[in-house]
């Protein structure tokens, strides 16, 4: 009998090759050492998906994993993780989504769903509480994500069904395919939609009616109320709640941190045409929120007139305003919304899809690509007609879209002719809407992220503009003033390491980083430790929780080390070191991550030569099997 509350206590194993569905009790030791969500997924991947496994082969695992706080009373508890080996990077991959699916898994009685094998024909997994069945999905194959969701809801006769769905991009094994999560949220990064497509799994549909039992309801209620009140009193709350992530467009632009023209610059002269104010004035319909979230950063938008009239969508993020705006030199806001909606329908990651296109546009501008290469398509900056034509080509791997579907690293390898210097990625993952020249910690975070270039693993926010209050509240006076200064390098190794460890825990609980834990920088180790203790009944002193976060992040590094990743891979594109930023507060700045990286390895207890965890560190974290597997013994 699984001893802890907060968990459903069991998980599903679905072998698509044999059509076999098995229920297993949730592993007590995994819960104690990795919590759930990201941590448990990491451990399962480590144990079961070795270096010999092809990301798009039947041996890869696709793990949907919730955490013990998911679906409870704590603020923003609607997140869930998807974990697999990434077909985009070939290393550890994960993606996190908000919405309502994570809690629905729990209500249905499942902490995790692990999908293995490969179906011989399109299938979808139907989970109605304890009733779990595989259905034929041949009639859904080829449909867009919202079409598929509508068809499933109609078939179930229940509008409250929650889904995870791939679009044509996932079906066609596009390496930047995401998984759409009810309602129009997305587990977008790392190409995990292609993993789902390789298994011929079109969708997972879930409906649950059960409770989540907690160890100490009175204590959890009091803690949750106190956390909710603190979030609402937080100085950043009003702007985040009013505008969501689009609210930072103009600020990041002023900082020189808003990638423009494929990172030639960090500021866009027409940013005010694609910022939150422009978006609100043009298309705002209403505020919406994910499960149990008091921040409600999500909004519904609708284009009222013009060529894209009627385009209606939610979850328009800063990242997409960048990738289909500044990064391709497009100031047509309606066009961005149309591209966003199209990516949602096709099941494409708006960040990586946008970066493939901005990369091609820069190569066109540099006369490295021509009409013969592109099949007659002119990749001129800002051409939204082209973008809207190309996105379906990417999703269906048609013509030049077949190359764009591979992501910028593989594109550069195929194109050659000096194109690599314009391919903005780390370890094969396209860099999102940040620029390390404008925020040093972000440059370091991009190279140390376990899933390739990524802002969300460490998610350093206190040094974006230098809020000393946040820095002091979270870290004390010890690291001030440098820790909150965007262009300082001192203490940034600590900021990144702490963020990675804390982020690993947040992603293992089911809470949101865009809510209280990172964007508002309000909830921290003691808050999560207390909430976990009240929910699960596990004793959870802060030191134990910190150790869990460190264990998870180290194991992700070990997984990547197994796949040949070393210090040599922890580097930014040359552009950031060689081309001074021409923009905003970062004007004249370049970035050299090496000194920060040296500090980071030392702080982590990793060897300086390869950047791998040392045997002492692995023993300390209770990972002796990693010593053996990496040949460090």
């Amino acid at each position: 009998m699984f001893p802890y509350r907060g968990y459903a206590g069991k998980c599903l194993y679905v072998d698509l090759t044999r059509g076999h569905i098995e229920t297993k009790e949730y592993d007590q030791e995994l819960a104690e050492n990795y919590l759930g969500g990201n941590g448990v997924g990491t451990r399962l991947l480590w144990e079961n998906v070795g270096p010999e496994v092809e990301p798009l082969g039947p041996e890869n695992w696709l793990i949907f994993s919730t955490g013990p706080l998911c679906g409870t009373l704590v603020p923003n508890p609607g997140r869930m993780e998807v974990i697999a080996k990434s077909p985009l990077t070939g290393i550890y991959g994960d993606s996190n989504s908000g919405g309502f699916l994570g809690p629905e898994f729990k209500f249905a009685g499942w902490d995790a769903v692990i999908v293995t094998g490969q179906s011989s024909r399109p299938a979808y997994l139907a989970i109605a509480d304890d009733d779990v069945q595989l259905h034929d999905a041949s009639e859904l194959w080829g449909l867009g994500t919202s079409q598929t969701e509508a068809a499933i809801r109609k078939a179930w006769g229940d509008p409250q069904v929650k889904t995870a769905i791939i679009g044509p991009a996932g079906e066609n094994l596009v390496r930047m395919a995401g998984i759409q999560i009810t309602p129009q949220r997305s587990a977008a990064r790392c190409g995990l939609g292609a993993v789902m497509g390789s298994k011929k799994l079109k969708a997972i549909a879930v409906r649950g009616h059960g409770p989540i039992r907690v160890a100490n309801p009175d204590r959890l209620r009091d803690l949750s109320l106190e956390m909710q009140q603190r979030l609402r009193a937080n100085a950043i709350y009003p702007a985040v709640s009013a505008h969501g992530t689009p609210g930072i467009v103009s600020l990041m632009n002023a900082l020189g941190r808003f990638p423009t023209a494929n990172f030639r610059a960090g500021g866009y002269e027409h940013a005010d045409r694609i910022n939150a104010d422009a978006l609100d004035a043009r298309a705002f319909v209403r505020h919406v929120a994910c499960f149990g979230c008091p921040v409600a950063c999500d909004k519904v938008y609708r284009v009222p007139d013009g060529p894209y009239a009627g385009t209606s969508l939610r979850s328009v993020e800063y990242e997409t305003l960048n990738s289909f705006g500044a990064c391709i030199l497009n100031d047509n806001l309606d066009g961005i919304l149309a591209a966003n909606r199209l990516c949602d329908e096709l099941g494409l990651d708006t960040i990586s899809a946008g970066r493939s296109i901005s990369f091609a546009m820069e190569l066109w501008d540099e006369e490295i690509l021509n009409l013969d290469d592109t099949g007659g398509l002119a990749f001129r900056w800002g051409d939204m007609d082209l973008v809207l034509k190309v996105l379906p080509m990417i999703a269906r791997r048609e013509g030049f879209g077949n190359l764009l579907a591979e992501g910028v690293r593989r594109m550069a390898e195929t194109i050659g002719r000096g194109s690599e210097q314009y391919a903005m990625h780390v370890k094969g993952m396209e860099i999102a809407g940040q620029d390390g020249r404008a925020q040093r910690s972000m440059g370091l975070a991009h190279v140390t992220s376990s899933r390739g270039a990524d802002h969300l693993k460490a998610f350093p926010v206190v040094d974006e503009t230098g809020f000393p209050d946040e820095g002091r509240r979270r870290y004390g006076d010890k690291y001030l003033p440098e820790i909150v200064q965007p262009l300082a390098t001192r203490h940034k190794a600590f900021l990144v390491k702490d963020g990675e460890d804390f982020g690993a825990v947040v992603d293992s609980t089911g809470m949101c980083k865009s809510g209280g834990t990172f964007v508002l920088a309000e909830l921290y180790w003691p808050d999560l430790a207390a909430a976990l203790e009240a929910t699960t009944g596990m004793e959870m002193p802060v030191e134990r929780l910190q150790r869990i976060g460190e264990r998870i992040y180290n194991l992700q590094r070990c997984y990547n080390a197994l796949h040949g990743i070393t210090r040599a891979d922890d580097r930014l594109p040359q552009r950031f070191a060689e081309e001074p930023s021409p923009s905003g507060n970062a004007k004249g700045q370049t970035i050299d991550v090496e000194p920060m990286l040296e500090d980071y390895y030392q702080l982590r207890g990793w060897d300086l030569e390869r950047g791998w965890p040392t045997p002492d560190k692995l023993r300390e974290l209770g990972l002796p099997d990693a010593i053996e597997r990496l040949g460090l013994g």
Partner: protein
Amino acid sequence: MKVQVTYHNMLRRRTRVERETIQLPAETSLYGALQKVADHYGPPLREMLFAPDGTVANHLVVFRNGQLARQDARTVQLADGDELMLFPAISGG
């Protein structure tokens, strides 16, 4: 002297003005400029620019001529033609 001020995000909701040029006496500090616009727009804007004790709000982000201005606002001497951008606290992304 003339100084251009641009209001962003929640601040713009309070001013209902995106950008304006304000007239200031010579040798006005950044603090003085903020007082001037707070006086003009009244409490809704003032409470976003200043703490109750009259110091500049910790969560106000000011750029002067494109550069972050994190110094004590009383020590920042403005010059004719300066451009100020004012942002409320917000982060992420």
